[in-house]
C-alpha cells in the first residue's frame, strides 16, 4: 500500500531526549556561542516556512468547515455542515466503517507481520533472509496496483479465484469470495501492509532479553505458552504502539477503499471526502467539516500511540553485548511454520504481483486458461510507453518528485539541525510542526491545499505543478526529518569540535566535515521520499489538473475505465522504476556503512 506512514513516527518522539538547559554529563549538547539576533532570525524564518507549508492550509480548511460557500466565494459563517454530519446516517456510517476497516486491516497486518517477525528473529525457521526480503517487497509496488489486483482476484464476476474455483471445483457454482465487501477490503489492505509491523516488531524482538523466556522454559512452559505468557506481555508497549501505527496507516488509506469500497457501497472518510470535493455536485465545506472529524479520529489514535511509547520506555530491556536473543528451536514444527510463512507471503505478496504481471501481457483481461497463453505479448507495454500523454505524465511525475523531495529533504535537514544541534529557543515548536503531517491523511492534506489556494487566488498555483509540489513537501517532511535526525545523531559532536580545535572556521567545518558525513544519509532520504511521491495517489487525485498529469493518476484513470492490461503494464513499469531507485539507495547506504568505524574501542 502507499507507504503514507512507514517508520516515520517511530523516531518522532526521540526529540524528547534533548537535554535541558545543559549540565554536561555524557551525551549532551554543548553551548554554541551565537548572537541572539541571528538565532531568532533563523528560528523565525523556519517557523514561517513550516507554518505556511503545513499549518496554514489546514487552518484554511478548518475555517472553510465553518463557512457555507465554496472556497474563493463570499459566504457566511455557519455550523450547518457539522450539524449535517451528525444528522446524516451515511456519513456517520462512514465514520464507523473507517474505524472497522482501520481496525480490521491493522489487526490482520499486525498479526501476520508479528508472526513473520517472530519467526525470523526468534526461531530457526527456514529461509529467513528470503522472508525478510519478501516482506519488504510491497514498498516498491504502488498501492493502487495491489488494490486492483485484489479486484481482479476476488471480484465475484471476473475474479480469478472465483472463476477458477467455479470451473475446477465441482461443488462450487457461485463466487466463493466477494472482494467488494468489508472483509475483502480488510484483506486487501491488511495483507499489503505487512512491512511496517514486521519491521517494528522485528526490532522489538531483537532487543528483548531472552533470559526472561529462558526462565519460563526452565519452569516447564513450552514454546507457545512462553510466547503467550512472557514474550508478548513484556513486549506489550511495543505491541500497542505498533498496532496503533498500523491503524493510523490503514485509516489513512485511499486506494483500497476507492477501488473496492466504492463499488461495495462501503464509504470511509477518505473516499467520502474525495467525492465530496471532486464529484459533482461538490460541497467542499462539508468535505472540510468531515475532514476535521477525520483529523480528530487520527489525532486520538496518535495520542494513544504517544502514551504507549512513553510507557514502553519503562519496559525497555536493552541488550548489551552479552544478551543476543537466542533462537527457539521449533523442532518438528519447523516445517509447518516454514510452510505457513511461505503461504502467507504467497497470498499477501506474490499472488497480487503475479496477477499484475499476468494481466500486463494480455490485450484485454480474461481469466487464465490454456488459450490465454497464445494471446500474450508486449503490446500493452509498447502502447503505454509510446503514448504521449503517459510520456508527459512520466516527466511531470519525475519533475514534481525530484523538486518536492529536494525541498523536503533540504528543509527538514535544516530544521533537524536546529533541533538536534543548537540551543535556539523555539526549536521544539519547529520539531513539532515538522512532524505534524503524520496526522494528516493525504486526502485531507490535499483538501487543505485546495482550500488555501482557492481562497487566495492571487497565489495562482491551483492546477499548476506548484500546488502538488507544496502538498508533497508538506506530506513528506516528517520522512526527511526522521532521516536527518538519524544522520545527525550519528554525527558525534566531537567530530566538529576537533575541527574547531584544529583551527578551522565554521564554514570549513561545515563543508569539510559535517556535510560530507551527513549527505549520504540525506541522499538515501531523498530517494525514499522520491519513491513515495511516485507512488502516492491521494494528493494527485485531488490536486492534479489537465497540465499536471502524473503516473499514479494515469493508473487511476485506467482503473476507472476498466483498462486492466494497460493499468498493469504501466504498473510494472513503475515497479521497475521504483526497484531501480531502491537499488541506488541501497548502494549508497552500503557505501556509507563503510564510513562508520568497524572496530570500536568505545
Amino acid at each position, binding site marked *: 500500500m502507499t507507504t503514507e506512514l512507514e517508520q516515520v513516527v517511530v523516531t518522532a518522539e526521540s526529540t524528547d531526549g534533548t537535554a535541558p538547559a545543559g*549540565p554536561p554529563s555524557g551525551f549532551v549538547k554543548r553551548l554554541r556561542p551565537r548572537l541572539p539576533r541571528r538565532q531568532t532570525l533563523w528560528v523565525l524564518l523556519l517557523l514561517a516556512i513550516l507554518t505556511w507549508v503545513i499549518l496554514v492550509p489546514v487552518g484554511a480548511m478548518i475555517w472553510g468547515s465553518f463557512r457555507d460557500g465554496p472556497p474563493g466565494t463570499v459566504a457566511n459563517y455557519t455550523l450547518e455542515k457539522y450539524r449535517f454530519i451528525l444528522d446524516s446516517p451515511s456519513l456517520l456510517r462512514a465514520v464507523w466503517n473507517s474505524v472497522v476497516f482501520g481496525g480490521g486491516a491493522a489487526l490482520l497486518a499486525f498479526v501476520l507481520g508479528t508472526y513473520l517477525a517472530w519467526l525470523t528473529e526468534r526461531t530457526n525457521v527456514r529461509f529467513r533472509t528470503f522472508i525478510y526480503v519478501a516482506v519488504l517487497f510491497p514498498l516498491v509496488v504502488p498501492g493502487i496496483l495491489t488494490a486492483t489486483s485484489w479486484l481482479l482476484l476476488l471480484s465475484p464476476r471476473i475474479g480469478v479465484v472465483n472463476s477458477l474455483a467455479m470451473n475446477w471445483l465441482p461443488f462450487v457454482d457461485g463466487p466463493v469470495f466477494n472482494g467488494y465487501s468489508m472483509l475483502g477490503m480488510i484483506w486487501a489492505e491488511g495483507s499489503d501492509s505487512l512491512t511496517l509491523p514486521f519491521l517494528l516488531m522485528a526490532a522489538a524482538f531483537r532487543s528483548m532479553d531472552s533470559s526472561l523466556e529462558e526462565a519460563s522454559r526452565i519452569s516447564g512452559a513450552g514454546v507457545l505458552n512462553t510466547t503467550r505468557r512472557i514474550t508478548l506481555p513484556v513486549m506489550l508497549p511495543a505491541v500497542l504502539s505498533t498496532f496503533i501505527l498500523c491503524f493510523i496507516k490503514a485509516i489513512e488509506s485511499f486506494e483500497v477503499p476507492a477501488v473496492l469500497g466504492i463499488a461495495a457501497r462501503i464509504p470511509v472518510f477518505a473516499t467520502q471526502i474525495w467525492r465530496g470535493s471532486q464529484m459533482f455536485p461538490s460541497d467542499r465545506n462539508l468535505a472540510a467539516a468531515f475532514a476535521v472529524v477525520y483529523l480528530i479520529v487520527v489525532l486520538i489514535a496518535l495520542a494513544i500511540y504517544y502514551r504507549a511509547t512513553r510507557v514502553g520506555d519503562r519496559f525497555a530491556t536493552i541488550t548489551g553485548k552479552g544478551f543476543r536473543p537466542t533462537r527457539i528451536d521449533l523442532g518438528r514444527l519447523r516445517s509447518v511454520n516454514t510452510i505457513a510463512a511461505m503461504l502467507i507471503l504467497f497470498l499477501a505478496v506474490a499472488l497480487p504481483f503475479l496477477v499484475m504481471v499476468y494481466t500486463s501481457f494480455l490485450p484485454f483481461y480474461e481469466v487464465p486458461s490454456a488459450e490465454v497463453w497464445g494471446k500474450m505479448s508486449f503490446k500493452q507495454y509498447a502502447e503505454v510507453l509510446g503514448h504521449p500523454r503517459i510520456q508527459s505524465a512520466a516527466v511531470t511525475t519525475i519533475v514534481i518528485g525530484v523538486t518536492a523531495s529536494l525541498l523536503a529533504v533540504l528543509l527538514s535537514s535544516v530544521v533537524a539541525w536546529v533541533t538536534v544541534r543548537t540551543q535556539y529557543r523555539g526549536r521544539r515548536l519547529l520539531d513539532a510542526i515538522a512532524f505534524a503531517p503524520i496526522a494528516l491523511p493525504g486526502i485531507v492534506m490535499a483538501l487543505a491545499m485546495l482550500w488555501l489556494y482557492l481562497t487566495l487566488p492571487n497565489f495562482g498555483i491551483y492546477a499548476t505543478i506548484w500546488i502538488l509540489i507544496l502538498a508533497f513537501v508538506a506530506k513528506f517532511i516528517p520522512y526527511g526529518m526522521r532521516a536527518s535526525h538519524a544522520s545527525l545523531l550519528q554525527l558525534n559532536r566531537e567530530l566538529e569540535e*576537533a575541527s574547531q580545535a584544529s*583551527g578551522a572556521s565554521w564554514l570549513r567545518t561545515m563543508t569539510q566535515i559535517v556535510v560530507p558525513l551527513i549527505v549520504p544519509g540525506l541522499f538515501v532520504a531523498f530517494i525514499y521520499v522520491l519513491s513515495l511521491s511516485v507512488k502516492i495517489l491521494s494528493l494527485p487525485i485531488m490536486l492534479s489538473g489537465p497540465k499536471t498529469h502524473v503516473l499514479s493518476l494515469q493508473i487511476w484513470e485506467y482503473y476507472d475505465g476498466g483498462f486492466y492490461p494497460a493499468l498493469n503494464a504501466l504498473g510494472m513499469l513503475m515497479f521497475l522504476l521504483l526497484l531501480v531507485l531502491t537499488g541506488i539507495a541501497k548502494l549508497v547506504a552500503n557505501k556509507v556503512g563503510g564510513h562508520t568505524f568497524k572496530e570500536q574501542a568505545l
Partner: protein
Amino acid sequence: MITIENLSKHFRTPEGDLHAVDDISFEVARGQFFSLVGPSGCGKSTTLRMIAGLERPTRGSIEISDRVVYSSSDRTFVPANKRSIGMVFQSYAVWPHMTVFSNVAYPLKVQRVAKATIRKKVHAALELVGLAGLEDRPSSRLSGGQQQRVALARAIVHEPQLLLLDEPLSNLDAQLRKQMRAEIKGLQERIGVTTIFVTHDQEEALSMSDEVAILDAGKIRQVGRPEEIYHAPTTQFTAAFVGNINLVDGRKDSPVTAGVNELMTPMGPLKATLATDDDSFGNGQQFTVGIRPELIEIRASGAPSTENTFDGSVTRLMFLGDSIECHVTVGAQELLVKTSSAATEMLRVGAEVSVTLPARYARILPAEDPAEA
C-alpha cells in the same frame, strides 16, 4: 604559561543553579604536564573545554602564553579555532571519511602550509606516535588504539603551544592503557609541549604528571606535585580520592600546632603530625587523622610497645599477589593495613596483632572539608 583566574561555569536548571565549575584558579608552567583529576561530574572536562574555547565560561579569565583568550571583565572571547591549541577528545573524533594522512594534515591545511611541508610534518607526527606507513589507510578501518594515535598526531602536528587531552585513555583496555600512558608521557617529554590532561583515574594522573589538581564538585581541593598530593593531602577528600587511606576521628582540647600533636581517638591516644601552619584548621577541636595503609607497621602481638602502637585482631585478609591487605580491628576502630605478602605466617583471620602508626605519617586533616556543596 597558562593562567586561570576565578574561572566559573554556571547552569540554570529547573532544580536550581548548577555550578559546574566554581571559581577555580591555577597556573601551568611552560612545558609542564598538568593533570585535572576528579570523580565524574567534578567539572574537569568543562574546565578543559573552557580552556579550549569550546565552552563559554560564566566568569573569570584565561590566559595562554601571555595572551588573554577569555576575560569576563573585558568581555574578551577568542574562539576555539584561534587559540593555537591541539586537543585529543575522549571519542578521538577521527574523521571517518578521510584517510589517516588527511586527518593529521587537516590543521596544517587550515593554516595554508605548503604541500611539501605538510607531507614532512605529517610523516614526522605519525613517526612520533608509531603509525608510520599508515598514511593512506581510511580511518574507518583503524582499531581503537590506532585511532587514538591518529588523534594525538593530529593534535601535535602543527606544533601548538598547548596540548589538551580529555580522558583519552578511558576507552582503552587496561593493557593498552598502561602502554599508552608511557607513550604519551614520552611524547610530551620529547617535544616539550605544555600539556593539560583530564582523567578520573588518579593512578594515571599521579604517574604521568608534573603537577596535579584535584577537583570535586566544581572546586579545586588541592594542587601540587604527585608526591605532595599522595603524602601530604590537605583535605579528607584529597586523601581519600588518591589511593587508600585510613581516617580516624581525633580530638584535641587545646589548639593544634605545627608538628606533632597528641589527639584522643577511638583507639586511644595517638600522636599525629600537622604539616602546616595553615589557619584553616581554626580553633576547632575535632580532627581527622589520615594514614596510608602501607605505612602502618604490623607485627605479631606481644612486640615491645612503642609510640602509637595498638593491639588488635585481624578480621579480614585479601591476598593481592605482591601485597596483603588486612582489616585490623583496634577497639572500636577498623584499620586497613597493607603489607608485603612475605609476611603471611603471622596473618590469619582472628590473629592477634600489633599495629604501629608512625607519627610522622599520621597526618592531621580538617574534620570536614570546607564548604561541602
